Structures are given as C-alpha cells and as structure tokens.
C-alpha cells in the first residue's frame, strides 16, 4: 500500500456532539480525523437558535428583559446589566448610586458562580470527578444569596431601567460577607486538589496556544484573551457603572495555553470577591430606582453599550426610530467570537487535546446560538 493510499484509508469524519458530554450543550463539531489526530474541526451551530434579535425588535424595550437572561444562562446578570445600561444611555436615564452598587455586587456574585461551574465542568471533561462537587457546593451558596433578592436561581431578571427590582437587606449583606470569608478558605482546597495536580498540568500546559495576533483577528475577549497576556477587561478599559471606583486587578496569563486560561479564571474569582467587598463597604443609602417614564422613547439613531460578561465582551447595539420598540437590536456575544478560532486552533492536534481546548474556552451554547 502506498503512503498516500494509507493516509486516505485512515481518514474519516467524526461527529462530536450534539450530545457529547464535553460540549456542554448542543454543539456539534464535525471532525475530519486521521487516526487520533484532528485535521479540520468545523463547529455546526444553531441547534437552539431562538432569534432573540427578532424578539427584541418586535416588542417594546421593557419586554426584552427576560430574554437577556436566556442567552447566557450561567451568568445572566451581566446580560441584564448591559441591556438596562444600553436603554439608559439611549434614553438619558440617571441611575441612583445605590442601585449601581447593587448591580455590581449581584453581577460579580454571578460571575463567581459562573467561574465555579466552569471549573467543575472543565475538570470533569479532563476526567476529574471530584472538583465539580466542590464547585457546586460553593456555587449553591451564591445561588441562595441571589435567590433571596432576585427571586430566581438561574435566569435572573433583576435589573430594571433606572435601578433594580428590589433593595438588598441586612440578611443579604451578612450572607454575602460570610460567603466571601468561606470562599477565601476554599482556595486552599482548590489549590491542593486541582492547580498542583500533575495530570491536570499535563493535560493543559502548552495546549491550545492562542497568540495575541490570533486573538485580534478573531475578536477574542474575556479570560480567553487575558490568558494570552493582553490585559483587556471592559470593566477597566471601558469603565461603566461604578467599576472605576473600585480597586481591582486584571489577572493575565503568559503564553495563552489552557493552563493560563484556567489560572486567569481562578484569579478572577479573588478579584470579584475584592470588588464585592468594597461595594458592600461603600454601599450608599438612597433610592434603588430612578423615576422612569412608563413608555421609554428610543430616539432615532444608533447606540452601543459594552459590558464584561463572564466570558468576555458583550455588546448591545441598538438602532432606535423614535418609538419604544427598538428598530434593530444586535447582540454581540463573547463565546461566538471565541469559538470561531477553533478551526485554526484545533487543526493538527490530538482529539483529547481538542476536548481540553473546548473546555478551557468556557462556552455557553445558548449564548452562541442566541
């Protein structure tokens, strides 16, 4: 048998998903394989496409609020935050300081919950079963805290135009402070259990290296970008809400492999805890909602608002026409751009490494499909 014939004989297609456990939702990747090596991974999207943008254009802007939580269901509050901020920028609504602080506290709690879920699920992809139990234990505390003010555990609809739905009470503050204290102790456990684990390091180090130029060409953002050493965080670079008042750092990696992306997220949990701590200390008294007209008129013209979601830059782009219904609402989601580099990043690697890369990207499929 000739060499070329042998290669032809060894080449085949493999469907990874849409029910594959490591795709975390309904994502199909059609892999062109040669033996154990992936030649060309092509993601196939749209299994849970719901056309959120059309829904945004066919009802008054208030009616879109619940939809924002159903894109990224793991970290819904930054999506709430971005949408209300967009409408506030368009309609010129001033938000009370207390409301902005509450928004930041709840969004950061949600970000930690998202990172904890990711941490557990990623290690489950790599074959470690225990960390997800620890992660879910910690996440459960956050969900309880958030449930006490928002009323829901997953798809929050808590932020409102001009403020938030209801005020936080002493019980909430107490529980949040207790969680911060607890979470700092848990770091030691995660460090011992995961970060220094030799199998984990072998599965992640030098795997799936994203270079800064590649990140720029694909428009990658969030921890996936920061793993490559670029300190780009919308909370710092394009300050919104009350983030400029807080002292926090942007953790960055060195070379952009899976291990760096892991380290960035773990360090971000601590930074989020710092933000929450400061926001609780400086929580001002006052109203939690501004007076907002019942029928918000969106003036003609376009407007953009970007926030840092758990997975990167979330941009809402709105075109108004003078009515209360958006004429066009474009939602730029981070995972969509982050995943789009997979065909380039994943060619010529081993199949188990592809699983490691996919997990390290922290994909949320409903957000990609919208």
């Amino acid at each position, binding site marked *: 048998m000739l060499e070329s014939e042998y290669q032809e004989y060894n080449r085949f297609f493999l469907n990874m998903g849409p029910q594959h456990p490591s795709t975390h939702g309904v994502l199909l990747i059609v892999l062109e394989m040669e033996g154990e090596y992936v030649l060309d991974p092509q993601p196939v999207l749209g299994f849970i496409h719901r056309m959120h943008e059309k829904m945004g254009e066919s009802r008054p802007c208030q009616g879109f609020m619940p939809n924002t939580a159903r894109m990224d269901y793991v970290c819904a509050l930054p999506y709430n935050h971005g949408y209300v901020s967009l409408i506030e920028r368009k309609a010129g609504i001033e938000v009370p300081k207390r409301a902005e602080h509450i928004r930041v506290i709840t969004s950061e709690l949600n970000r930690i919950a998202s990172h904890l879920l990711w941490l557990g699920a990623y290690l489950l992809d790599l074959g470690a079963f225990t960390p997800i139990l620890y992660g879910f234990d910690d996440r459960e505390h956050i969900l309880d805290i958030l449930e006490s003010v928002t009323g829901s555990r997953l798809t929050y609809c808590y932020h409102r135009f001009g403020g938030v739905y209801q005020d936080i009470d002493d019980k909430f503050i107490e529980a949040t402070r207790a969680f911060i204290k607890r979470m700092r102790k848990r770091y030691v456990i995660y460090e011992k259990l995961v970060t220094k684990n030799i199998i984990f390091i072998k599965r992640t180090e030098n795997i799936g290296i994203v270079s800064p130029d590649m990140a720029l060409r694909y428009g990658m953002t969030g921890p996936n970008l920061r793993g490559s050493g670029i300190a780009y965080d919308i909370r710092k670079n394009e300050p919104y809400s009350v983030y400029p008042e807080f002292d926090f750092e942007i953790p960055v990696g060195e070379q952009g492999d899976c291990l760096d992306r892991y380290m960035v997220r773990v360090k971000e949990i601590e930074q989020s805890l710092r933000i929450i701590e400061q926001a609780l200390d400086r929580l001002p008294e006052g109203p939690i909602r501004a007076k907002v007209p019942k029928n918000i008129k969106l003036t003609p013209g376009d407007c953009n608002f970007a926030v840092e979601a758990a997975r990167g830059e979330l941009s809402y782009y709105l*075109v108004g026409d003078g009515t209360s219904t958006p004429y066009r609402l474009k939602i730029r989601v981070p995972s969509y751009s982050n995943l789009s580099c997979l065909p380039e990043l994943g060619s010529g690697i081993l199949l188990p490494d592809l699983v490691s890369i996919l997990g390290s990207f922290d994909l949320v499929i409903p957000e990609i499909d919208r």
Partner: protein
Amino acid sequence: MVDKSKDYKNDFIHQGLNATDTDYHQRGYHLEVALDVNQVRKFAQTAYDLGFYIVFVAGLHVRSEEGNDQDNSGLEVVYQFARYDQLYRIKARVSVPKSLKVPSISDIFQGADWHERETRDLFGVVFDGHPNLKPLLLSEEDSNFHPLLKQEEKLKSLDEVSWKSGVPETTEKEANDETG
C-alpha cells in the same frame, strides 16, 4: 507606553475614507466611517494594520430610496471595531447594492467569517469572496429565508433611524412649532 488618547480619525481619512468623530457618551463609539462598497476591504486592512480587533458585523434593513440612488437594496452592513490597548470604538457602515454583493473581509479578519455567514442567514447579504458562505445559525433548508428582513409597512428610511445632524436647538424649535 501606548498613548491612551490617540485619535485614529486622520489615519482613516489618509486612506481616503469618510470618517467623522461622534459623541462617545451619547452613542458608545468614537468614530463613524461611511463606506462605499469598494472601500470595505481597504477599511478592514487599515483597521488591521492599526491594531483594531473585530467586534461584530451586522445588518440593517431600511427602506430603499428610489430615485436619487438607483443602486440601493435598502440593506446596510454595519462593522464595529475596537482596541485592546485603549478605549476607542469604530462603527463603519456600507450600503448594499441591488446585487446584494459586498466584499468579504474574512481573509483579513478571520473572525468576520462567522459574522458574515450570520448576516447572510438573517439578511441575505452575499459576501463576495467568502470561502464558505453556508448557513450557520439557520438550517440549510431555510437558506432563502431571512428572518430579519422587515415587512414593507414596518420599514423606515435611513434618515428616520439616524442621529439628527442638525444642532439640538433646531429640533426643539421644530417641536415647539408643531405644538404651537
């Protein structure tokens, strides 16, 4: 150290592009670039050379102006770019001709690949030179169905959905005239 307040308007004007400054606090972006169809690739190359990253490519459906501009399908393609090292956002806009063809920028910014496929799905814009313009979010059977195209009675002209270029005083005056 990167200059945090660099203005990129002149870099685009030097390339013969029509760039204007905008009010960031009102609109959320700093620079607006109105493009001709044959300038799209030059604009993307300039943005890449200056170190911008791609935020998104999207479509917009407005009423086509008959008469003064014959070659206008009513569709617009909107590009947004931003920077990692400073706060600077660019919005670029191009009117799609009747042939529905706009040059693809997916070889300059590979990230545009999926955004262009999405725009083809939702609006039917054909990106010329795209290597793989297959349905992405919608199914293959629906490749001629474009959900974000508006019905004729809901369409508005581009002027009706754009910022008023005049000074605010005049619009206030007009409003007073109407009530008075």
